[in-house]
């Protein structure tokens, strides 16, 4: 493992915090007073998915938790089994054909945009999938759209459509069934007609 300082922090990076791997979900530099600079982070535990805040002194060192990014195809969702294990999402490595699974807690809202057979960037540490690098946009087919919907008059011209993964998205009125649209998976907002 390699040691890094707070200057090298990047969103999405994995570090060891209190002996456990955590992902940096967010970080901000803060200057509370006399000459001291700090980095306020939101850290998500890889084990429990719990998010907590910690403020590092600027220049503190931490261990980076090494991850490799593998291109993988999403295969299917494995439902909750009798032993109480929650939903798991199964992926296959495009090169080794090995299978990996990610729990819903590590995918968050992104599960509503996962499309079988599409390729995603999955992060792996020591042969275990630890997360997915969320793309800036996902392209999905509109499967249900009301024709000539009048939309919400307050916010201009929008209507809600359903895409192939079942997710609902607010889009401009001109979007029709059969169109492919680009969505920002982080906010769930419509970006453009693809």
């Amino acid at each position, binding site marked *: 493992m390699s040691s890094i300082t707070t200057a090298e922090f990047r969103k999405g990076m994995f570090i060891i915090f209190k002996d456990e791997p955590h992902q940096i979900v967010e*970080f901000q*530099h803060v200057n509370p*007073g006399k*000459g*001291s600079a700090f980095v306020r982070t939101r850290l998500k535990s890889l084990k429990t998915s719990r998010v907590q805040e910690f*403020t590092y002194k600027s220049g503190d060192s931490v261990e980076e938790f090494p991850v490799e990014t593998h291109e993988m195809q999403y295969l299917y969702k494995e439902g909750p089994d009798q032993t109480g294990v929650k939903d798991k999402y199964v992926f296959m490595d495009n090169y080794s054909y090995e299978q990996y699974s990610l729990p819903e807690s590590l995918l968050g809202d992104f599960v509503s945009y996962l499309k079988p057979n599409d390729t995603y960037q999955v992060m792996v540490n020591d042969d275990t999938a630890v997360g997915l690098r969320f793309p800036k946009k996902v392209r999905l087919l509109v499967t249900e759209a009301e024709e000539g919907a009048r939309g919400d008059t*307050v916010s201009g011209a929008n209507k809600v459509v359903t895409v192939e993964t079942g997710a609902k998205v607010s889009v401009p009125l001109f979007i029709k069934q059969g169109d492919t649209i680009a969505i920002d998976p982080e906010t769930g907002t419509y970006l453009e007609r693809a």
Partner: protein
Amino acid sequence: MKTWEKLRKDPSLWPRYFVREKVTRAIRTFFDEREFHEVETPILIAHPPAESYLDVFQTTMFDRHRHPATAYLSTSPEVPLKKLMVAGLGNCYSLTKSFRNMETQSKLHNPEFTILEWYRIGADYKDIMKDCEQLLLFINRLTASTSMLRYQGEKIDLTAPWERLTVAESFKKYAKIDFDMFFDIEEARRIAKEKGYQVHARNTWEELFDQIFLNEIELHLGHGKPTILYEFPGVMGALAKKKSSDPRFAERFEFYIAGLELGDCYSELTDWKEQKERFKKELAEVKRLGKTIYNYDHDFIKALKVGLPKCSGIAVGVDRLTMLLTDTDDIADTLLFPGKEEFSLLE
């Protein structure tokens, strides 16, 4: 998409941006009723106040022969307001823009921000606490017609008295630290280490203080009721008067609502000799930190020599106040032209 484009697309967003005009109107009414003078202070200045924790914006002024002179953007209206009090102005305030550099990537900062500073003659920091209680209640009643503030799912009762907690009490209550012991740098190092923080030889006492404050204390402040956190260690606050009964502390307070710092008050230091010494120390620190170097304002020391009447004043962040009143967690949502839309560096 820029804010003006979002507003064009979705006119229902406008009311959030109209809160600011209500806030500034309320502030002016409040001080007008109390017979404070509103004055304009310069934004383009020759000497920023010597405060080592601030990073200044520097620019160059030229005369018609292209001779250059260094100019700075004001970090606060404090020094010009104090000169006016020396001149005999009396109670006064300024509602203006201030600029602070190197505060990027934050939901709580914008490089240019609106600051409200007011000063009361003959007052000390405890009088300003009461002003704060009254002002916030006044603004909230005018903008939301209630004494209850709703922010990010919390309810905060703005009626006086607010919670009052000394810095030493807050360390005891939330971090289980005996502040009398913590004053000693070696003890502070031991305590921080025991708590699992990294302690390096280069770390200053202030850094150890701030790290514990930011991790263990700040988040607890201002829930249910606003919190006035008072009597800061004397080393923090270049323009504050020391507490006469215990000079380890300065007569200074900050107030917090829902974990958010909104204002910073001092009983003003009126002793010109001590002020000059502190400025020199601050500037040595500015140099040590490798920040933009400037001279302190000799004219200000001259004014203090003439005599600043006993007074106390406070700086309140108007953008953060607007965040509270619009129930948003990002300062950019209160600004029609947020810095990050102008400069990609700030994204």
